[in-house]
């Protein structure tokens, strides 16, 4: 047998303890047909040698199911697990946002239990900036510190993830916004937090997300003449071997 053949032998693997996540799993089963297909992809993906792995199309299956599943997270946890201690806080945030910016500004709100019970808001792109401003300035929110900003390519859409912290209240919140993958444009947060400047440049450089009203949007790492956006899942490296 050659090396390649050897590589194809799927390694014996212990199953990860997924019991905790069972609740999420049950939703996925609803999309039964898709699930089967995804299973196939998964197993033959594993069999592939490491070099071939970056073939990103394969990952599409599993990801497709994952995202819609999020929607009902909040209700479900209530039934099956003890409610998160952050639940009342999240309700308060949602109520405040609804009160000031209307019911349609939020797409979803849930507690990310895996991430240390983190309240997470998914917002509509149009109200992204005004929600951020509300979070920063409202007396009962006061999220005055931007801890992290980055983008992710989720194949169907781009996502910008913002992690805010309130020094006054010692609370965290995650703010997420889904953007059109072909033309990802979003309002910049630099007018609110200067600290968003370079992270936004980084997202622009590596993912091609454009930030409106950014004072100096540039390709901060790779230089203006770089072709393509490396962190996109369909990025083709110019020179594969080096």
């Amino acid at each position, binding site marked *: 047998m050659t090396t390649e053949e050897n590589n194809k032998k799927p*390694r*014996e*693997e*212990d*199953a*990860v*303890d*997924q019991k*905790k*996540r069972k609740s*999420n799993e049950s939703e996925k089963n609803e999309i039964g047909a898709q699930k089967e297909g995804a299973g196939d992809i*998964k197993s033959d*993906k594993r069999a592939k040698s*490491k070099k071939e*792995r*970056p073939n990103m199309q394969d*990952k599409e299956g*599993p*990801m497709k199911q*994952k995202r819609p599943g999020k929607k009902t997270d909040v209700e479900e946890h209530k039934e099956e697990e003890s409610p998160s201690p952050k639940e009342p806080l999240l309700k308060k945030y949602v109520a405040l946002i609804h009160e000031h910016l209307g019911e349609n500004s939020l797409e979803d709100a849930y507690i*990310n239990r*895996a*991430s*240390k019970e*983190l309240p997470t808001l998914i917002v509509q792109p149009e109200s992204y900036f005004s929600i951020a401003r509300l979070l920063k300035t409202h007396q009962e929110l006061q999220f*005055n*510190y*931007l*801890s*992290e900003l*980055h983008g*992710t*390519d989720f194949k169907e859409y781009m996502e910008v*993830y913002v*992690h805010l912290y309130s*020094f006054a209240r*010692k609370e965290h919140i*995650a703010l997420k916004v889904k953007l059109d993958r072909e033309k990802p444009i979003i309002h910049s947060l630099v007018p609110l*937090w*200067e*600290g*968003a*400047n*370079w*992270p936004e440049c*980084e997202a622009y450089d*590596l993912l091609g997300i454009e930030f409106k009203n950014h004072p100096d949007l540039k390709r*901060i*790492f*790779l*230089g203006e003449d770089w072709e393509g956006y*490396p*962190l996109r899942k369909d990025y083709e490296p110019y020179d594969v071997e080096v």
Partner: protein
Amino acid sequence: MVRTEEMLLNVGPQHPSTHGVFRLVVKIDGEIIQEATPVIGYLHRGTEKLAEDLQYTQIIPYTDRMDYLSAMTNNYVICHAVETLMGLEVPEKAEYLRVMAMELGRIASHLVWFGTYLLDIGATSPFLFAFREREAIINLLNELSGARLTFNYMRVGGVKWDAPEGWIDKVREFIPYMRKELEGYHDLVTGNEIFLNRVKGVGTYTKEDALQYSLSGANLRCTGVNYDLRKEEPYSIYDRFDFDVPTEETGDAFARYQVRMAEMEESLKILEQAVEQFPEEGNILGKVPRVIRPPEGEVYVRIESPRGEIGCYIASDGQKEPYRLKFRRPSFYNLQILPKLLKGENMANLVVILGGIDIVLGEVDG
């Protein structure tokens, strides 16, 4: 009457005071800086992109190379992120070893900063003394992990090696030795009039500026914000130790110096307690599946590195490799305030201000 003229000056990419490949384009009028534009990216290695094709264990050696002066905290942040996502328990003994390694790393990192900062300002001998003490720490970490800088010591769910025989005693002996040396540093530098003239009131910013620019670590604490993640949201076993978070009010380069010097003492306090509490018995690796395959979901954790708040975001799709991995690199965020600080400053203060921020270019560029 002296006639001055605007000119552009390139500092770097290869310049001794930038501690790495970092370029600063400054527009100066005479001796006064009109505008400074940092140019970064010379050391961008695409860690995040590479990580998308690597298993979690394989990513750990890559994190060593981000902030190469305190690789232990980088090791920790990714392990901690995966452990949080999977809900893994880490054995107590492993946590003690991790904390000791991280605190030793913090002291080593601050020592490098102390030495090189003073070298930038023009004092040569503190550099030699600081590196002598650092060598002792590096030797300790070398004995523990098998490498001097790129430790690759932590694993998801624990650590790779148990403490070798006699190692704990060596750490115990090191603490009073380091205390004495720190006192010596204060004698040598802190009271020195030339040094004080050089750093007092230079590169001052307010608390509001610091928060606005997302600064963290000593750069934030020098403005009076009492914020240390080890205290604020204790990860690992930091809640078992009694230590203070040093802060200063003035927000100038001297305040940052004082905060870092005091932090070394606090780290020694933590080490002292950790050595006493260290459990001789126990596992160093928890119950971890052979192939680490976190469930679907995303996680963001933050810990306190010597340079500030280092964070790790993982979006997992249930595979062995992360779907997306992102590090919040404190140096990258901290450096943003530089153009603001340099504007209107004297050219000679450039190195004082840049050095005071304490950046590591491997971390800035990712």
